[in-house]
Structure formats: structure tokens, C-alpha cells
């Protein structure tokens, strides 16, 4: 099994700052961590490899410092890592990100399964996984909570839905995104840490990816963040007058007016 795990380095705190000019995240000077949902993806990738053999390659698109996240992934059991890094990638929305990652997947062919976390904790869109599947023209399953079975060319998974779970089967290769119910990520091991320190991590730029310039970064982004703001908190209260019945009638008519009942 050749497994690709996509991950993102995200700010490790809740102190997210937004650049007022570009309306994108300010990343400088903030301690970064592996997006927590991606940690489940790494763990599941490593577990699949432990059971079925093969290798786990972790891929991220980001600034040079994102290499730390890749090294951490290796200390957690991943075999190889690739960093997609190029000034041209800057300012990418989910679509442009998915494009770069899917180009990397093509370059890493053959692969059997691509695993992503269900969403990031900074952007929170949950779109990159499905967009990659779309670009690669392979099946996609979101919110996987358990790998039921992997047999010759097919994958059977359980996924969370609102009122229970579904069992789905797909051919491979496929993209899945995983939820936190899928496993408990292991801690790094000392041998993993040693390996991660000496691992050679190639960096691929846009050209090496064979990416079209206008499809990556800000120019490849079809969405733009116009404004990021904190919603204003408004709370109002009103005391109803009269006896109980009058108050009840008033309340009902108010709720009806507000289309709440």
C-alpha cells in the first residue's frame, strides 16, 4: 500500500491573527503544530502500513518552516515526506491548495490511498480533501471513523453521519478524510525522533510539480476573503407585562412574528 497523508501546519494557539491587508492568517512568530485532525490521518496511515505493508508519504504545502511538521510526522511513524514550497504558492485558497497537493500526488504515483484530516482548525473549511479527489478524478469519502477492511483494490469504511454511521465501499485509489473517532494517535518514539532528525526531505517548487502558474497561490484562487471580523454580540431583554395569560399570549405572538414557532 502506498499511502499519502496530507497535512497542514497550523497555529498552535487560539491567538489567530489576521493580516488586515490580505485577510489571510499571519503565521510569523507563532508556534505551529500539526493540524490535530491531520494527526489522526498520519496515525491511520501508519496503522494501514503496519497491517498491509508499503509506505506512508506525508505531504504539506507551506513555508520552509513547515518542514518541522513533516519531521514530526516522521517521528510519528511516516516513512517519507515532501514539502511543497514556492513563493508562488502563497495566498492559496482551498482550490489552489488542493491543486498543488494533487499535482504532488500525481508525481508520487502509484498511490493507493490519500488520507487527509476532516478539516483544519484554522481555516475550518474541510474542502481540500474532496477537491483533491475531484482533481484526481478518484472516489472520495468524508468523515471516516473506521477502516473496516482493505482488500485487493477496494476499501470498506465506516463513516459518521448525523444519526449513526454508514458503511461504504470504494475502489482504490481513493481519497478519504478522517474524523477524530478513528484512532488515538501515538506519541513519537525515540527511534522515530532519531530518524526524523536525519531524514532528507525534498522540496518541490511549482515548476518541479509541473503546476501551471495561474493555478497556484493567490492567482489560482477563485475565492478571496473580503473581510474577516468578529460578529458583534447583541443581547436585549424585555419584561412582559400583565397577568400570566396575557404574558403567554404576547410571548406566542412574538415568537410567531419572529418565525420561531
Amino acid at each position, binding site marked *: 500500500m502506498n499511502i499519502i497523508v496530507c497535512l497542514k501546519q497550523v497555529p498552535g494557539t487560539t491567538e489567530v491573527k489576521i493580516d488586515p491587508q490580505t485577510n489571510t492568517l499571519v503565521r510569523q512568530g507563532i508556534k505551529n503544530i500539526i493540524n490535530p485532525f491531520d494527526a489522526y490521518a498520519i496515525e491511520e496511515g501508519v496503522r494501514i502500513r503496519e497491517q498491509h505493508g508499503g509506505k506512508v508519504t506525508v505531504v504539506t504545502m507551506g513555508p520552509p518552516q513547515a518542514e518541522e511538521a513533516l519531521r514530526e510526522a516522521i517521528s510519528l511513524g511516516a516513512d517519507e515526506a515532501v514539502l511543497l514550497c514556492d513563493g508562488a504558492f502563497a495566498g492559496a485558497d482551498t482550490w489552489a491548495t488542493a491543486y498543488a497537493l494533487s499535482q504532488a500526488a500525481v508525481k508520487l504515483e502509484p498511490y493507493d490511498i490519500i488520507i487527509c484530516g476532516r478539516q483544519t482548525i484554522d481555516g475550518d473549511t474541510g474542502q481540500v480533501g474532496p477537491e483533491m479527489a475531484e482533481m484526481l478524478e478518484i472516489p472520495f469519502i468524508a468523515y471516516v471513523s473506521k477502516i473496516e477492511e482493505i482488500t485487493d483494490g477496494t476499501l470498506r469504511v465506516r463513516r459518521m453521519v448525523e444519526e449513526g454511521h454508514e458503511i461504504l465501499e470504494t475502489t482504490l485509489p481513493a481519497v478519504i478524510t478522517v474524523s477524530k473517532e478513528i484512532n488515538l494517535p*501515538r*506519541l*513519537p*518514539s*525515540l*527511534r*522515530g*525522533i532519531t530518524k526524523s532528525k536525519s531524514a532528507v526531505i525534498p522540496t518541490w517548487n511549482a515548476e518541479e510539480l509541473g503546476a501551471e502558474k495561474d493555478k497556484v497561490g493567490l492567482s489560482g484562487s477563485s475565492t478571496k476573503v473580503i473581510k474577516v471580523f468578529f460578529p458583534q454580540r447583541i443581547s436585549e431583554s424585555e419584561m412582559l407585562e400583565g397577568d400570566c395569560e396575557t404574558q403567554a399570549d404576547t410571548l406566542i405572538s412574538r415568537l410567531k412574528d419572529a418565525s420561531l414557532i
Partner: protein
Amino acid sequence: LEYFLTEEQKTIKGLARKLAEERILPIRAELDEKEEFPWAIMKDIADSDLFRVFVPEEYEGLGGGCLDLCLVVEELSRICSGVAVSYAASALGCMTLMEYGTDEQKKKFLPDIASGKKLGAFAITEATAGSDASNIKTTAEKVEGGYLLNGTKQFITNGGEAEIYTVIALTDKTKGARGASAIIVEKGTPGFTFGKKEKKIGIRASATSELVFRNCLVPEENLLGKPGLGFIQAMRLFDRSRPGIGSQAVGLAQGALEVAVDYAQERVQFNQPIISIGVVQSMLAEMAIQVEAARALVYAAARMVDSGAKNVTEESAMSKVFASDAAMKVTTDAVQICGGTGYMRDFPVEKMMRDAKILQIYEGTNQILRNAIAVNLRKRKARTP
């Protein structure tokens, strides 16, 4: 203080801390309450390669020494001393093997200890042999096909949970301590059973049991080193393992100090956090001094062991005595600072105080160790004209 740890040692310490905070902290109260052996944590420790730290590289370990082991024990003990001792006891259980075993013996047992697949344990104490460790009664009679063990070991850490036991028994009972030998006994050997599991004041996550040998036949090749050297081997072992108990004390005291500081910072009385009250500051400062002094002594003793020094009896005894007395004092004061809250079982410091007491007792009571230190002082004095 700066202890000039190597990069590798910093990594080991950092990983042990991460493991303790992420995996042990959420369940430590439950482990204490239920007196349950922490198998899930042992697996986490194994998966992180921390059992490999003290095993030589040629037997699938990472080749670390006494200080490396101490760093792991300290960090585990900072969160739960019961878990820390279960880990440390596995190391204790295979140290005699590492020092006196043949290549074949090491190949057979060490890789499973290193991977954490099996735990080790060391057994010398008996009903008649505590501080007077030479007064053991368990026999290992040489018979055809090996040694026949009879007797009962008491208060054995990891008893019942470990797979590999280093047992000190008399291969020649006419010679007393000079007839003692170290023998490896595997769990499941016919005639080897476990007696009662003890209920303890503290370190309640750890298992402490009797080992019962009734005509238990152990293969001859399980004898470690030469017959008759068991007592000396055991004493030498403890000289090298005592900094480990010291580090357990350092971690425990460190944990208690941190809780006390946090509490003193948050607890408001007379319109001020109690940390701004002089008498509390004085207690906290004294605790911090005790912790750091203990750490410095333990690390220095551990480094002396790692240097290959021939005689480390005094230094390792000092590190164990000082650190365990410090842990008892610091944890008691931590409860005092936390007041009524500290006395309650919902708060972690009462457990730390209970956990501290054993450190003054096991691997040589602080009294017998002071005695050993004094004996050395007298010997040196006698030698100088």
C-alpha cells in the same frame, strides 16, 4: 540549574514528559483509586521506545546509562510515582542480567524487555530479610536439569505482572549470604505462583506481590554469573540503581512543588493570592531549594555510575537518602500550602504525599543507607594514620 544534558538526553526527557502529561495525567487519580496496574501506559511507554533507553544497543536497546534512565523516571514520577516505579522496576529486573549475563542469556531476555513486550522484576526481600538482606531463606538446590527453587519472596514490585524475574536464592544454604546466587525465573514456570497482591499507602498503580516457589525447576542456564555471588551482585546492583529512586523522588517533589505554586498563585485569602504572603513564600522557596539540590545530587551520582566508577556505594546512597527525604518534606508542605483542598482526594497533592513515603523505605531504608555511609566514613578514618 543547567545540567548540560546531551541533545539525546533532552529528547528522552522531553518525550517522557510529553507521555506523562498526555497519557498518565488524565488517568492518574483513577489508577490510584482502583489500584490497577497501568498496562495501557506500559504499552505507551513501550511504543515510545522508553524501555529501550537502558538496554544496550546490541540487544535492541538505545544504550543509555543510569542518567538516561533517571531522566525518564523523573518525568514519569512528576505525574505519577506509581507508574514510574513500574517502569523502573523493569530496569532493575534486568540490570543483573546486563552486568553478569552471558551473550546468550542477554539475547534471550533483553530484546523483549527493550521492546516493552515483557516487564522485568527483581526479587530479594523475604519475610526474614529486609534491611538484613543476607538473611534470605529461599533455596535453589542444584538437581539434575537445573535448580529447584523453594521459598517465598515478599513485597516484589511488578510481581505478577512481570514475565522475567531475577531471583536471589541460596544455591548453598550452608554458606548463608556467600551461598546466594542470582537466577532468572520466567513467569509460567511450573511451581512458580504469586501470593497476595499488597494494598499500599501510596504508589498504588504499581503491583507489589509475593512470589511463591514450590519445587520450581529452573534450567541451569538461567543462573547469572557464578554461583555464590548473588548477594554481592545484588548489593552492587542497588549501588547502581539507587539514583533511580532518587530521580523518582526528584520528579515527585517537582510535581508537588508545581501544584503548590499554582495553588498559591490562585488561592485568594485576605484579598491577596497566598503566594504574596511571606510565610508561604518561605515554604515555597525552601521546597524549590530541596528539589533542585536533590536533582543536582541525583544527576551527579548517576553520572558517577555512568563513568564506570568502581565504588559508588556512598554517593548513590546519599542521592537516594537526600532526595527521598526531600520528597517527603516537599510533598507534605505541598499539602500544607494547599490546606483543606490539599487534604482532599480530588486534589493531587495528597496522593503525592502518600507516594513519597515508600521512597524513604525501599531499595535500602534511609536508616540502613546512612549506616552504610557512616561505615565508609569510619573505614576511611581507620585507614588514615
